[in-house]
């Protein structure tokens, strides 16, 4: 299955890389630039953060709502330590040192979240990670000394890479796309390693994995650490994209937005995160034309509700269903039976909903 999909993903990546040059052929110059910078660039950045949630949910069965906060930790670490940020909090490091530090902080935060929520599962985990994320948000919002409170930290302009300035939309787009691609293929590789297999074993049956002699807790914490690193990459990019960071960008709304992206795209495969973030960004941008600029939340809420009600496995699920419908391929019976037998009703999650 995956080996069949690999050439397609490479082709998709190539198209995305060339897109800034392809788009002007199709659209007027101004619009093409707008699509690259404001829609695709943003979708990729948020997609990375959403992918950290999708990674945990798909391969570990952990729906963590702390991922936006973890991305924010990376963003704040960068803003606090990098030179030139306003107001200056520490401001001693260049981007070359501040970005790795930010990623380290996000990974550490991910590990911490994994350790705190170690003994909770399913819906409890969702509640606890949401509460933890919001706790950090409230702390950041009220703390002036380190995080400059409500205003946040501005003027994080981003580095110059080999003489290329990050403020150039094209440079940013390719840097974000490159990061996203590396992380995406990294995840696909990681889940085939022994670590990834144990993780999927934990998702399906933690007790059996523990009985086989694996340290379930350590694997869980490590998975949260990996997700923290991914979210951190997204957080660094989004901070540079927004030229700074403020508490609003990690609040409840932002947290829920990341969840919406993951679910709309589908919690079945990492690519779902990017599909979801693209749909989200497009809806966000064109809400004014579709319904009413100020009522974007109603629009996205309805879209989200419709997806959850109709196709719990998101856009990916819609695609799979259409494919099955078109090819009139009978559902593999053994798989359905296996699912029904092995699934106690209380642990059913949206992504396991039978098609």
């Amino acid at each position: 299955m995956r080996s069949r999909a690999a050439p397609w993903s490479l082709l998709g990546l190539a198209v995305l890389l060339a897109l800034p040059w392809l788009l002007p052929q199709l659209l007027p110059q101004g619009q093409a630039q707008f699509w690259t910078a404001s829609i695709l660039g943003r979708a990729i950045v948020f997609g990375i953060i959403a992918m950290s949630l999708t990674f945990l949910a798909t391969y570990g069965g952990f729906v963590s709502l702390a991922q936006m906060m973890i991305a924010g930790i990376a963003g704040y670490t960068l803003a606090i330590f990098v030179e030139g940020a306003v107001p200056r909090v520490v401001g001693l490091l260049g981007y070359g040192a501040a970005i790795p530090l930010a990623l380290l902080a996000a990974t550490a935060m991910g590990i911490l979240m994994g350790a705190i929520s170690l003994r909770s599962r399913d819906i409890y985990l969702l509640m606890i990670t949401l509460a933890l994320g919001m706790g950090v948000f409230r702390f950041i919002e009220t703390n002036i000394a380190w995080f400059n409170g409500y205003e946040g930290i501005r003027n994080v302009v981003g580095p110059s890479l080999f003489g290329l300035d990050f403020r150039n939309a094209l440079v940013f787009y390719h840097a974000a796309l490159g990061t996203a691609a590396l992380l995406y293929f990294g995840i696909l590789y990681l889940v085939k390693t022994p670590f990834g297999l144990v993780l999927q074993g934990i998702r399906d049956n933690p007790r059996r994995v523990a009985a086989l002699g694996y340290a379930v807790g350590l694997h869980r914490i490590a998975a949260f650490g990996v997700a923290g690193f991914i979210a951190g990459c997204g957080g660094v990019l989004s901070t540079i994209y927004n030229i700074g960071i403020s508490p609003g960008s990690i609040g409840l709304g932002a947290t829920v937005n990341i969840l919406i992206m993951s679910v709309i795209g589908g919690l079945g495969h990492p690519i779902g995160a990017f599909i979801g973030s693209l749909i989200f960004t497009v809806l966000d941008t064109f809400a004014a034309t579709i319904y009413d600029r100020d009522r974007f939340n109603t629009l996205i809420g309805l879209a989200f509700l419709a997806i959850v009600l109709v196709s719990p496995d998101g856009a990916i699920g819609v695609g799979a269903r259409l494919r099955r419908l078109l090819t009139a391929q009978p559902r593999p019976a053994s798989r359905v039976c296996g699912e029904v037998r092995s699934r106690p009703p209380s642990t059913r999650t949206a992504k396991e909903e039978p098609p």
Partner: protein
Amino acid sequence: MDLAATILLNGLTLAALYFIVASGFSLIFGLMRVVNMAHGAMYLIAGYVGYAVFEPLYDRDVWYAWYVGLAAGVAFAAVFGALVQTLLLGWMQGQELRQALVTIGLSIIVADQLLATYGGTPRQFFAPDAIFGSTQVPGVGGYPTFRLVQIGVAVAVGLGLWLLLNRTKLGIMIRAGVDDRQMLGACGVNVPLVGVAVFALGAALAGLGGVIGATAQPLAQGADGRFLLISLVVVIVGGMGSVTGTALGAVLVGVAEQIGQAMFPTYSVILTFLIMVTVLALRPQGILGRA
């Protein structure tokens, strides 16, 4: 000494409001296993609808304006809750994550539509004369009467819930449903109907909190998120589905919040979360939760 007593009393009055709201959340979770992420939206909707009923009556200066507003808000929330359960959540029983996602989508839409209808101006009820003004409290001095009433309401809610769950037929059904839904259904009880009743009751409690909370402090957009999170933290600390646990959690969180704000204002949130993390590390099911 005065200061300590005031902080403690502030903490308890805050805890009373937290308990009223969180008890509904805990009740719904206890029986239905539904994490009602729209609980804050129900708080908000009751506050706004109650205010819309309250305002014209208050302008006409009738004494019962606040009581009618309260009843309207609570009733609207209850009907809303019953509708949510009947139309959306009832047919996906057992799919916990999907139900949580549905309520998240719902809360986004509700909050946005409330913003569209009522705008962003904060609103505040005026308490009726009987419970307005201040009362002398030994050791504290003059203290807002309404905040003391808040404690009274919370105690009444707690007692009422305890009586309902332990002394009535509906309570027996609810408790049996918590333990074994299928067996309860096999005994001839209409479990979905019990579910709708529980959801309406839980939403009504959120609504009660909404009107009470909007009398004690202004109601504005964003209160939904705040009270959803408080409900989460309170039931995580106290234990899911336990009335006593919810009360304990509310007192811990409310008092800790007030102590934190008095002693180290910019770090006060940390105290709440230290409590939560400690509880999670030692008793993941909450202080009084069942494993």
